[in-house]
């Protein structure tokens, strides 16, 4: 296997882009990434595009050809990669395989989602397609509702209060103030979270990731080639693993832990030859507040049931032991579904390069991103390391 590096990253602001279509957003992110790498579009050999719901939300499939055409690079290998909310992480994983195998030398891992084209109830119908349509979606449960089932199990099993779990989105909103591309750049309080509308009892609105439009892209190539492309600061992909689990939470012995996270993390740590203690900066997939807590535990940063303590003790703050979601996370940076896994990669790369502005972690060398599809049916963990 060849060693894989990231030589360029690009993104759009996350938000409600009323005047921009899916293809507009995607093209902007790719052009930004190519420009960041100091390359040209004609250098691109393949594109893996993370996207969940273009068929449902835009009536548009066949994104590989569509987006290659829009970028004027038809001829390249280009396909959509779909793993529900983990589509971005899965697209990145495919891009890593494409370079590591020696099959391609310059690959774009992109992600895009355009969620504001339809009303909330249509979006809710699209998102529950991440679970089993025949047995779970047919009950009328929403995706927030699935998380609510886990939320209540977790509170009971570990005797944790909602006001403690609600500190996770508060943490993220604080940091999002200083992130240019974040959707919600203002602070919130625990009181505001607990007073906000109930979406799926007990989950409150300010515990939910929002409706977001956005696109992000990364340019990957072999490590040897990266040294020629950019001498300054190279980021290597030292671990990349994807794991699946039973698609529905009722098919698992303990729904309060995501086995796919545990398995993907174990494999990625092993590939990177590190332990959780070696990680300097993290982006986790907190589609709902409770997931942020569960993710910290499943990735090995806290014992089961102790995730909230990391948050309360400031350990996930910029100066803490394990700085987490300094981008604002899915809650405040936003969650353009299939693009989110790539946003996380872009943010980690910027942290490792020392380009993350006010939220820069001092001398960050190793970063980890976690992307979840559905209610833990797919999880992708990627570990990046800066080489100087």
């Amino acid at each position, binding site marked *: 296997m060849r060693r894989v590096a990231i030589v360029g990253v690009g993104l759009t602001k996350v938000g409600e882009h009323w005047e921009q279509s899916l293809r507009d957003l995607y093209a902007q992110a790719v052009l930004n990434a190519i420009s960041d790498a100091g390359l040209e579009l004609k250098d691109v050999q393949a594109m893996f595009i993370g996207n969940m719901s273009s068929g449902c939300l835009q009536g548009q499939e066949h994104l590989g050809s569509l987006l290659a055409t829009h970028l004027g690079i038809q001829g390249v290998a280009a396909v959509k990669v779909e793993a529900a909310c983990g589509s971005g992480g899965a697209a990145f994983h495919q891009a890593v395989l494409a370079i590591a195998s020696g099959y391609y030398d310059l690959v774009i891992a992109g992600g895009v989602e355009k969620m504001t084209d339809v009303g909330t109830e249509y979006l809710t119908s699209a998102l529950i397609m991440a679970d089993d349509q025949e047995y779970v979606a047919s009950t009328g449960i929403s995706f927030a509702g699935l998380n609510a089932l886990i939320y209540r199990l977790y509170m009971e099993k570990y005797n944790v209060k909602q006001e403690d779990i609600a500190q996770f989105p508060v943490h993220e909103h604080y940091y999002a103030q200083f992130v240019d591309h974040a959707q919600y750049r203002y602070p919130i309080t625990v009181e505001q979270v607990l007073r906000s509308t109930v979406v799926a009892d007990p989950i409150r609105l300010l515990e939910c990731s929002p409706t977001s439009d956005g696109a992000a892209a990364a340019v990957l190539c072999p490590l040897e080639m990266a040294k020629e492309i950019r001498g300054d600061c190279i980021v290597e992909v030292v671990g990349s693993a994807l794991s699946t689990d*039973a698609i529905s939470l009722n098919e698992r012995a303990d729904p309060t832990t995501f086995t796919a996270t545990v398995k993907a993390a174990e494999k990625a740590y092993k590939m990177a030859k590190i332990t959780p203690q070696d990680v300097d900066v993290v982006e986790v997939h907190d589609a709902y507040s409770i997931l942020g807590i569960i993710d910290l535990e499943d990735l090995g940063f806290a014992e089961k049931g102790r995730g909230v303590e990391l948050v309360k003790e400031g350990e996930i703050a910029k100066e803490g032991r394990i700085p987490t979601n300094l981008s604002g996370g899915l809650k405040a940076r936003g969650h353009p579904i299939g693009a989110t896994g790539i946003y996380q990669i872009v943010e980690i790369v910027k942290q490792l390069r020392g380009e993350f502005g006010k939220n820069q972690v001092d001398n960050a060398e190793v970063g980890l991103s976690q992307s979840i599809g559905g209610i833990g049916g797919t999880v992708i963990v990627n570990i990046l390391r800066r080489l100087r």
Partner: protein
Amino acid sequence: MVTPSCPRVWREQKYKYRLVGVRCNRCGSIYYPLVRVCSKCKSTELTPVELPRKGILLSYTIIHYPPVEFKKYAPYAVGLVELENGTKVIAQLTDIDFSELKPGIKVEAVFRRLREQGEEGIIEYGIKFRRALE
């Protein structure tokens, strides 16, 4: 929203009108929904089995922002139920006041209308759970 489909609803009747899963002939593991291969012992010999209709509520939620095809029913409750043999099922909870919802209460399966496929489409039926009558 899910595309309206008569063949799909017709095909699903046999395992949606009753609680039907499968039991592995080799190791005895039970699966709901049914699977083609046992994940524990990898046997492909599995037999359909009707599951117990009574169980306890493990967790629940109340849906205030539903998928579009359930809009007219909101708010409604959906629960995670553990059947008497340990199998877990996600299902809507019916005939119950929200104030009675509590993990640990006894529930039982009933046959109910699930959703409608618009003005001209078919009406889907299946299993919901209510508080057990004792």
